[in-house]
Every structure is written in C-alpha cells, then in structure tokens.
C-alpha cells in the first residue's frame, strides 16, 4: 500500500533508494547529504533493505566502490554534495565512460573557500562533462519519483549511463513535506531488476574494461556515450508517461513550463527557484502582464529542442542561474543561449546570477527580473548579465 509520510528531501531520496532495492551502497557523509547515507545505513542495519553497505574513507573511494559494484551487474546507489562531488570527479568520468548505471542524489551546495554549506548549483554544473545524466528536482516528491525514474532510465540497455538527481541544500534536503512512498513490490513492474547486457565482471567469463584504446578506437567509443545520451533523450518522456500511468504523478518532462503558451517574457530557472517562479508569474498575470516561467528539470541530455520551442512565441527569456562559471556566465544561461542560437528564432536572453552560497531568492525578486526582461524585449537586446542582490 502506498504510504503518505512526512520526510525531508534527504529522506525522500533514501526512501526512494530503498524502494528501488539496490544491492550495494558505498557512500561517505557530507553536510547537507548526511541524512541520506545515515538512513540507508539504518535500512541495512534493520534488515529492511538487504544490501551491502560499504563504508569508505572518502567520496573518491565511494564512487570507486560503486564502479566496482555496478561492474558486477549490481544495482548501485550513493549520494554526495559539493566538495564530495568534487573529490570524486575523476571517478565520475570513469563511471560515465565505463557505462555503469550508478544513481546518485546530489545535494547542491556551494564550494569553498570560503566554507559555505548552503544552496548553490556550481557543484553539479561543474560535472556537466562527465557523462552523467542530470536531473534537478524542486520538491521532495519529485526527488523520490526521480530516483525511481533514474534507475529505470540509467539501467536501460540502450542507455547504461550513471545519473544524478540534484536537490537544493536545506531548501529541500532539510525541509519536511508530505510525500507518497511505495514498497519495492509495488513498483517492481515499473522498475524490474537490473540486467546488464553490455558487460559484466564475471570469473566464469573473464573480460576487462578500461584497457588502452589508441586513437584508432577512442573516438568511436566516446561517440557511443553520446549515443547513450540520445537514447536517454528518447526514453525520458516514455518513462515519465509510464510512471504517470502507474502512479498518477508527473513533473513536467524536460521542462516544466507554466503559462508559457501566450507569454511574452519567460523566466527560466532550476531547482526550487524554478517552482517559486510560478508565484511571480501569477502575481504579474493578475496585473495583466503576459509572463511565464519554465523550470529546466533535465540538464543532461540538454533539452535543445524544448528550449527552442519555448522561445518560439516569446519576446525574451530571463534566465536565473544559481551558479557562475567565472570568466563567462551562469551555466543555464550559457547553454540556453547556445540552444537558441542553433535554431532560427533568436530572442534576447537576459541572464541573472542570483542566490549563490544560499542567499535567498524570492518570487518578489523574480518579479523584478521578469520586469527587466520586458525592458530587454522592448529594446530587442538583453545587455550584460546582472548579478541580482549583490551587495556593493
């Protein structure tokens, strides 16, 4: 029977992992993810989850252990954040290139120095190139549902790629709301057992992964990873539709668009900012302003066509980034502009960086940003990126 429980975002991730029934968990704690791995340990200790829990001394080892486990054909789960994600960076590349479907919640937290434990998307944005599928959640139920969908997506024989679901530090990780959770049996139709077809470590059938491959081989193998992402692109809506059919919930596919059909200016954001943006839109719509908001849920594979379609009838985009790639711009703004430029309908994209290191971003701020977007639309150009809320 599905149960409604009050849980933090961290516990939502842990309960989802339990529902998915992984065979191996290898993880290391870091604020604000710690509750996830502690809860997984509780589940294993109590026998509620029959899994091997590997205690490691660092996140690099955690991912290395996950790689080993996944290479044996076992469903594998871990979680991290910020500096932990940074520490396992080398291993992230390995998991992607070895085509190992490890699923990992990442609690988005700022990198230091200075030491900062609050929300910031730079940690996961810095791993865009590692061959991991990336989702961003805006509420605890979405965290739970996305973990389950990720296992199904990542383990699909056409995909076999690792995947992360990102959740905002404290805003989701430590915030309690009610969510619906299931037992493994209730979802096993949606998520059958993992069957590795591509390769597996097996003493009875010895093979090696990771041997040297010179210029005559590497390029095609690299392209094969790109093909895996394209396979994921096709599967994402199919899996969401199946989840919706079985459990009655969906979260918007690649982009959760709100009142965009007749919007002149659309604000795009990720994570919880993307959900709160809807309140800004409602406030402006009440005043007769044709605003809309869109929340990017999937960042890898990047939804190029969906972004282009969103721009088709709009006059300007406003992109709010909770990350900053020094020397250029926020990650989402950069990739959205790139997607639009590849199409034929080029509209101004006004970029805001906001909320770094956990500074609060409210719907009232987003109202101001959208209004600036209307000015950009009138001028026909966005001008320089702006740093919202910077105290100078």
């Amino acid at each position: 029977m599905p149960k409604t429980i009050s849980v933090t975002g961290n516990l939502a991730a842990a309960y989802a992992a339990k529902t998915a029934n992984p065979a191996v968990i290898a993880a290391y704690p870091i604020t604000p993810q710690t509750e996830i791995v502690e809860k997984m340990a509780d589940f294993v200790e109590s026998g509620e989850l029959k899994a091997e829990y590997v205690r490691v001394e660092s996140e690099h080892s955690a991912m290395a252990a996950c790689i080993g486990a996944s290479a044996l054909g076992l469903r594998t789960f871990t979680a991290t954040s910020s500096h932990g994600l940074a520490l396992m960076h080398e291993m992230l590349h390995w998991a992607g290139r070895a085509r190992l479907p490890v699923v990992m919640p990442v609690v988005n937290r700022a990198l230091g120095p200075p030491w900062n434990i609050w929300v910031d998307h730079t940690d996961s944005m810095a791993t865009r190139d590692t061959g991991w599928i990336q989702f961003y959640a805006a509420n605890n139920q979405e965290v739970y549902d996305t973990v389950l969908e990720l296992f199904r997506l990542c383990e699909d024989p056409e995909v076999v790629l690792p995947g992360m679901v990102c959740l905002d530090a404290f805003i989701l990780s430590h915030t309690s709301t009610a969510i619906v959770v299931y037992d493994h049996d209730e979802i096993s139709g949606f998520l059958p057992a993992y069957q590795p077809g591509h390769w597996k470590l097996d003493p009875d059938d010895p093979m090696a992964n990771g041997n040297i491959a010179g210029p005559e081989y590497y390029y095609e193998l690299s392209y094969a990873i790109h093909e895996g992402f394209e396979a994921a692109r096709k599967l994402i809506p199919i899996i969401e539709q199946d989840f919706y059919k079985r459990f009655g919930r969906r979260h918007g596919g690649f982009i959760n668009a709100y009142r965009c059909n007749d919007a002149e200016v659309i604000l795009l954001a990720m994570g919880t900012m993307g959900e709160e943006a809807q309140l800004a839109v409602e406030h402006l719509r009440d005043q007769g302003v044709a605003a809309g908001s869109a929340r990017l849920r999937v960042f890898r594979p990047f939804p190029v066509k969906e972004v282009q379609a969103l721009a088709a009838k709009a006059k300007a985009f406003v992109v709010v980034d909770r990350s900053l790639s020094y020397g250029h711009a926020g990650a989402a703004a950069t990739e959205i502009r790139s997607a639009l430029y590849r199409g034929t309908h080029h509209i101004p994209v006004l970029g805001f960086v906001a909320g770094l290191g956990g500074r609060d971003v409210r719907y009232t701020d987003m109202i101001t940003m959208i209004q600036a977007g209307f000015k950009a639309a009138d001028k026909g150009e966005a001008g320089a990126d702006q740093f919202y809320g910077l105290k100078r």
Partner: protein
Amino acid sequence: MHLFEIRFHGRGGQGGVTGAKLLGNAAMLEKKHFQVFPHYGAERRGAPVVAFARIGDEPIRVHSYIYQPQAVVILDETLLEIPSITEGIDENTYVIVNTPKRPSELNLKGKAKVATVDATKIALDAGILVGGIAVVNTIMLGAVARATGIVSIESVKRAIQEGFADMPEKVVTTNIQAAQRAYDELIME
C-alpha cells in the same frame, strides 16, 4: 486559505525543531499542505535555534525564507532580548510566548496579538525534562492551536501520539496532557 507562516524561536534542546515538525504532522493529519524547515546554525544545547513552518490548503510552491510570519512562537522568554526575534511582525501577527507573565506585561502592546502560557511550569509539573532543560515543544503546540486555530488540538494530540510512537506510553500521555493544559491555560489579551 492564505498561506500561514510560523517562526519558532527556542534554544537547542527545547525541541523547537521537533515542535515545528510535529505541527507539520498535525497539518498532514488534517490533509493540509505543509513545509517545515530549521535554520541550520549552531547545533548545540542552549544556543538560539530558529525553525519555520508553512501550512496551506494548496501545494506550497514558495521555498524562500519566511519574512512576515503570521505567528511567532517563542519557547524561551529570555530570547525576547534578541531584537531579531520580532522581525517581520505586525499588529496581526500572533506572538505566543512561554512565560509566567501576562501578555500585557510584555513589551509588545499594540505591536502584535500576544498570547502567553507558562509552558515551563507545565513541563516541570509533568516532569518533561531532558538534561536539565524543560522541553516545551509539545506544550507550545497546544498554545499554537488555541491562539491561531491553524490546526485543532485534536490533531496536535494525534501528531504527538504518532510522532512519539516509539516512546513509552507514559511519555506520550504526559505530553498530550501537557499540550491540552497549555491549550486550556493560554492567556490572550
């Protein structure tokens, strides 16, 4: 129903964060939407602690901080000395204080809808003490139910019952009775 936002102020060990969570559970029992979060800071006994709760009839899409709460719950009277404790309140805000004083005796006349209850006394009478600190969270929830009506006292008591399910029966009943006593003894002027 408009979104009801509450800020809890306590000291580490008084159960402020758990109190906020139990309030969320009470809202869940009434099929309301809720959101409960602590302000992550000094995690030790005695240090000032802040927790937040939102309750509404619609799914809650706001995720930023609470700036103008409809209610402020103060689990420890000594915290009134901190200026930020009354930040964002106006004459319509419920300020519910754990104190033996009457509302008019606090320096908040005309500035808020003040309600007081001697939750510490209730806790001491009932023996709800942990490590020398009177844990007043469940008691103050009874006060919140009475002052604001945001949840019923019955939901509060059920939330305590379910939240403390792993504890001895005596602890559960003691806390439930203490919450009821705060509900009954709350002074609103």
